């Protein structure tokens, strides 16, 4: 696979929350607005890119028996860096995301990519992989957050966009609303993939 393939696979083919249904805890919990989802996605992307890079650089140096422990130390360090940086310069976002920032440590996408990809591939490929998966995650959270924000509070990126008599469904901002929105998105994605597969078969 080329670098481009490694990058683009994370954007559609294996887009983490929708295709692999991984990393659902932050996906469902913080996506009450598009911007929150975007912020969470960027924080995760940062950790993913750097943990992939460092795991890949150190892959020949880390003995197989302690690899998971080493990966976790590397991941946890970058998570703390993100936490401190957000607290210092993006305090309001930090307060909204709260506990979900430290919980990036246990996001299975990140450990999953370190174990399944970065520990077996060179740093450039790992960077492309991390960037692709991370951006895919960010897009997923942003789209899900925007849908919930639009229906739940009638705004998009904090700007009111719905007609004036629009009555927001507060339900969409609650946890069940997150599941419903995710389910609808999954169904849509499956529909598109089926269409594509049928077209491919007819040819």
């Amino acid at each position, binding site marked *: 696979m080329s670098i481009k393939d490694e990058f683009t696979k994370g954007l559609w083919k294996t887009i983490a929350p929708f295709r692999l249904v991984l990393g659902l805890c932050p996906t469902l919990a913080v996506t009450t607005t598009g911007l929150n989802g975007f912020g969470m996605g960027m924080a995760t992307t940062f950790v993913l890119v750097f943990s992939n890079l460092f795991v890949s650089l150190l892959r020949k140096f880390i003995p197989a*028996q302690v690899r998971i422990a*080493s990966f976790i130390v590397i991941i946890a360090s970058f998570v703390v*860096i993100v936490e401190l940086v957000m607290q210092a310069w993006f305090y309001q976002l930090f307060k909204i995301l709260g506990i979900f920032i430290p919980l990036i440590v246990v996001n299975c996408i990140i450990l999953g990519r370190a174990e399944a990809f970065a520990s077996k591939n060179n740093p450039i490929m790992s960077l492309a992989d991390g960037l692709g998966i991370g951006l895919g995650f960010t897009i997923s959270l942003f789209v899900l957050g925007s849908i919930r924000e639009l229906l739940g509070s009638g705004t998009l990126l904090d700007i009111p966009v719905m007609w004036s008599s629009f009555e927001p469904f507060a339900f969409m901002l609650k946890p069940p609303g997150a599941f419903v929105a995710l389910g609808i998105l999954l169904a849509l994605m499956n529909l598109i993939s089926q269409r594509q597969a049928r077209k491919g078969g007819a040819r």
Partner: protein
Amino acid sequence: MRDILKMMVVLTLIGAASGMALSLIHSATKAPIEYQTIKFVKEPAVKKVLTDYDNNPIADRKKIVVGEDERGKPIEVIIFPAKKTGEIFAVALEGKGKGFAGLIGVMVGVSKDGKLLDIGITSHSETPGVGSKVAESSYTERFKGLKAEAGVKVDAISGATYSSKGVVSAVNQAIGYVNKFGKEIF
């Protein structure tokens, strides 16, 4: 044997390197984080408890040392003074008290003549809907106008006794600082 040694060395090195990187980042972000917490957490509470001032209490803040912790490090408290025509007539400072779940931070406004002006909760992790009621004005207003002497007592919120006690002990801590270090403060 060699494997075990290698594992130990590698893990130690990775741990040490990440520890070093984190301590560097920590010291680099320390000042901005302090600024952010003052701006977003303390400033709204200070503005709530102090009124009728013509200075900027945030810019005029000063630190006083109120004691030492168990490791011998000085414990600092930030004092936000309210001035009128150059004279301090009241201060706001934060006290902490143990609530139902962790510490409750309370910004306390104390006037120079020894009265409680108002209080504002800066941080707490009390149960939402139960203990969190202590942050509502119906409770914080009960402190208005009380004498700033040791052992302030206020009726607790029923169902949230521990949280109420936490707030009261935070207020008493702040009052204790004012009474003990009054000369430095005013």
